């Protein structure tokens, strides 16, 4: 198991095992790692531990969290990393994190069940992993996938007209002229070029021609297809 070593003014004041999935660091009493110093925010940062990997995440602290001298938001930890919170230094120690100790069997984490489904030969993994996954899954993934979007035409006979993108795959263009499509993926909306032909006719996003790969669309992007300009709008 990984451990941390807390130092203040160059002297080790405490050693702790990382035995919980989430360990909070802060000035207030309810933190797992309690650092009583004014340079430390009430809830300053937290260390997430999943199996044999740990991560540090700053919790919008006033003075920031530094890892090996660099200000970070969140970062994976490696053996001997030094986290600096205010005047305290926290050294992360995990000598087991060698790459040879790989889980080769694929395992299923089942956040819906009490524990996780464990397959033969699998290392004992506590159900905390399932909880973390559930937390991660509910946090921010997949939301953009159902966000509604529309296109507003800026030029041509139908200028000003708005067309909601109700289909997952909407084709744009007219016969004989280059055609593009907008596709909705779990990660957002993308513009794709359909017809081959010469590159000069490729659709543009914000005045730059797109390549053969799908181009991610952001709110208010200006798209030009077959000489017609339109704005992509996320509702």
């Amino acid at each position, binding site marked *: 198991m990984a451990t941390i070593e807390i130092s203040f003014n160059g002297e080790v004041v405490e050693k702790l095992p990382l035995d919980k999935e989430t360990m909070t660091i802060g000035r207030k009493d309810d933190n797992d790692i309690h650092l009583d110093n004014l340079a430390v925010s009430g809830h300053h940062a937290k260390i997430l531990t999943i199996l044999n990997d740990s991560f540090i995440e700053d919790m919008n602290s006033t003075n920031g969290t530094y890892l090996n001298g660099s200000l970070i938001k*969140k*970062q994976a930890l490696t053996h001997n990393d030094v986290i600096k919170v205010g005047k305290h230094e926290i050294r992360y120690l995990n000598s087991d994190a060698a790459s040879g100790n*790989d*889980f080769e069997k694929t*395992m299923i984490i089942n956040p819906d069940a009490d524990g996780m*489904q464990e*397959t033969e030969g699998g290392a004992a993994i506590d159900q905390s*992993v399932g909880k973390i996954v559930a937390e991660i899954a509910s946090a921010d993934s997949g939301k953009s996938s159902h966000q509604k979007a529309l296109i507003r035409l800026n030029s041509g006979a139908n200028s000003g007209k708005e067309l909601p993108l109700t289909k997952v795959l909407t084709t744009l263009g007219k016969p004989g002229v280059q055609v593009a*499509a907008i596709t909705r993926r779990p990660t957002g909306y993308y513009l794709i070029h359909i017809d081959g032909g010469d590159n000069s006719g490729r659709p543009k996003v914000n005045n730059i021609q797109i390549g053969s790969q799908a181009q991610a669309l952001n709110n208010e992007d200006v798209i030009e297809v077959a000489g*017609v300009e339109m704005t992509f709008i996320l509702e």
Partner: protein
Amino acid sequence: MSLKDKILITGITDEGLVRDHNEDSIGKDDELGLLVLADGMGGHKGGEVASAIAVDSILQELREALPQIPPGNTDDNTGYSLESMAIEIAIKHANLKIYEAAQNNSKYEGMGTTVVVLLLYDNRITVAHVGDSRLYRMRDKRLEQMTRDHTLLQELVDRGFYTRKEANESLNKNLVTRAVGVNPDVDVDLLEDIALVNDTYLLCSDGLTDMIADDLIEDIQLNYQDNLEKMNRELIKQAKDYGGKDNVSVMLARVIKEFPANSGWFSRLFDLLS
């Protein structure tokens, strides 16, 4: 309408060098332009059973359902094509079959499987997937991963804890956050895109992508682009040369000719500007 002369499909599954049985299953229908690949998990024979049920059940259901769908229609609620909806339903049915089989036989408890399905129809594709089996597309000599793994690792990358490079060195590689057959219902990721002549689609289990990097997959595709079957054999061979620690399965589909659903008015839908 048969797609046999318009789309070339190959597929190989191999137990690899370390495992003594193959928990992957693959299946295809050349007429329909349909490919299904599953990577089973779970003790005893559970993994094999789960992936076999998934492939058989999905193929069988779609062979019945797809020919009855009039082309060019969209589901009003979701915006997906009716073909995509049929695939999602087929995966959900397979999910329930595996879940029930596991409930009724303690030997199979906890079994599950990944699945990735590719359907080519009306000059477009639908990709459906659950788990860490992937779909890549080779277009204009560039390889693009189109599916997003349902793994803890991917979640951590998405949340900003890891860069892709750090993630590859992590120990949490093979933790799947979503699988078919583990719960009574399953969320299926669907994506639709346009297919172009000369596109090559690659479906694979993690036995390929854990062993060889994306740039090697791209190189192999470029070197063997004239012969799809050789390309397929080479991909399997390379995965084994680089360790072959897991079962490895690869399926390929190459678009030879355009394949509009009808030569008539709805061969292409021009939603705008026409």
